[in-house]
């Protein structure tokens, strides 16, 4: 994962939050007030214009009534016979345009189509995997169908590369974060992400914001944040939470297993009471977290 992007994406989420701020709203109200006053002025001007136009129109009434039927007929004719008059020219023009600007067309359309395809495929796959895995879950071990899926898609044609790519689950990062302060207790990163302290703080701020915005308890805690290709899964414990940043397609069984795994990790390797968030705690938790995630990944063959 591009380290900057997670950081920046979180910043974007925080900025979205900013917009809800009271000050902004006050400012908006102020702006709207000003706009209304401006609009009033504009309406005055328009009123004057309209009454001017009215006079003109009334003077030229005779002229208008003569011209109108001619125009109307011409328009009717064009509506019916446009294809016949201009069809050929339009076709040729478009053809020529496409021919000479092929690259531009492809360049413009490619990202849009690519994105749509990717999103659609991912959506279909989420559903499909859920289906398959619902059926297989009882009969086989979790590792089994992942291996099967992988084998199934090994050596697929280039069009299906997209599909393969989007299936690939990766745990990009995981953060153990102190619930109240947002301080980072431990972390795992497959990309040597920097700014992890700041990411921990931002995640905590986002979580708190969502909780404030939705009046908390009723809806429970925030469990996932989706942003672009990342899904951040949040597991809550008593004094801290674990945020795992994933890419790829996964289903609820995968998630349940990750939950279980993290629960086990937390019970064994994170102390119940945390007085200070210091380097000793950070190093021991991070070391265990890495081992634990690697275990999980090899269990899932990812």
């Amino acid at each position, binding site marked *: 994962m591009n380290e900057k992007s997670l950081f920046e994406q979180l910043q974007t989420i925080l900025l979205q939050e900013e917009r809800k701020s009271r000050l902004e709203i006050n400012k908006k109200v102020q702006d709207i007030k000003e706009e209304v006053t401006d609009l009033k002025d504009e309406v005055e001007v328009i009123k004057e214009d309209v009454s001017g136009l009215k006079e003109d129109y009334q003077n030229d009434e005779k002229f208008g009534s003569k011209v109108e039927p001619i125009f109307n007929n011409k328009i009717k004719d064009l509506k019916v016979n446009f294809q016949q008059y201009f069809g050929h020219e339009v076709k040729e023009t478009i053809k020529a345009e496409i021919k000479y600007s092929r690259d531009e067309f492809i360049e413009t359309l490619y990202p849009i189509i690519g994105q749509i395809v990717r999103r659609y495929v991912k959506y279909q796959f989420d559903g499909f995997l859920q289906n398959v895995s619902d059926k297989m879950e009882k009969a086989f071990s979790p590792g089994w169908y992942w291996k099967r899926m992988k084998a199934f898609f090994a050596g697929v044609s280039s069009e299906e590369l997209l599909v393969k790519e989007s299936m690939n689950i990766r745990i990009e990062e995981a953060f153990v974060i102190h619930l109240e*302060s947002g301080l980072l207790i431990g972390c795992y990163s497959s990309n040597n992400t920097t700014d992890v302290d700041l990411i921990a703080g931002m995640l905590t701020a986002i979580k708190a914001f969502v909780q404030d915005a939705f009046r908390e308890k009723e809806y429970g805690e925030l469990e996932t944040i989706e942003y672009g290709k990342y899904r951040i899964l949040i597991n809550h414990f008593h004094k801290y939470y674990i945020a795992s940043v994933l890419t790829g397609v996964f289903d609820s069984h995968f998630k349940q297993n990750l939950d279980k795994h993290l629960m086990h990790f937390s019970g064994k390797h994170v102390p119940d009471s945390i007085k200070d968030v210091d380097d000793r705690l950070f190093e021991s938790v991070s070391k265990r977290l890495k081992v634990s995630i690697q275990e999980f990944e090899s269990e899932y063959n990812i």
Partner: protein
Amino acid sequence: MRSISKKVILAGSFCVGKTSLISRFVYSRFPFNYQTTLGVRIDKKAVELENTSINMIIWDIGGEQSQARVPESYYLGSSGVIYVFDLSRPSSFYNMAADIEFIRQKLPKAPIVIVGNKMDLLDERTLEEVKSILPLEPDFYTSAKAGANVENVFLKLAQAMINVSK
């Protein structure tokens, strides 16, 4: 050397220079293109004291700072507070005593450093006049613009947080 992380928040009225003080401290510069902070911004900087490195995670909230409106989560888990007012704007310090009382209730254990900012806008005589009407004596007079005393604010808070930790 032991390293320990602490959450620090800035409090005080709107536009007193909270964000500018952080910029000056963390990036050693004054933010020239001024923008009101409306949401949360988080910065960090480590300082070394008594053979300990204090990793300050600094939360800055923007918008209208009527204290009661700051979300609860902003205070939660904070180990230290910097309360800032603007020496050139009396409305930013009239409510200082009540504001600080409010913060103390929320965070009984957290040390609070009080800062009168924008010292550069006042000549010596005016500064004396302002001092005489302040409801509370601040710990520091600063200028985020000129970079005066800014480092000391954060160092003092770091020291106070170490003392609490002991």
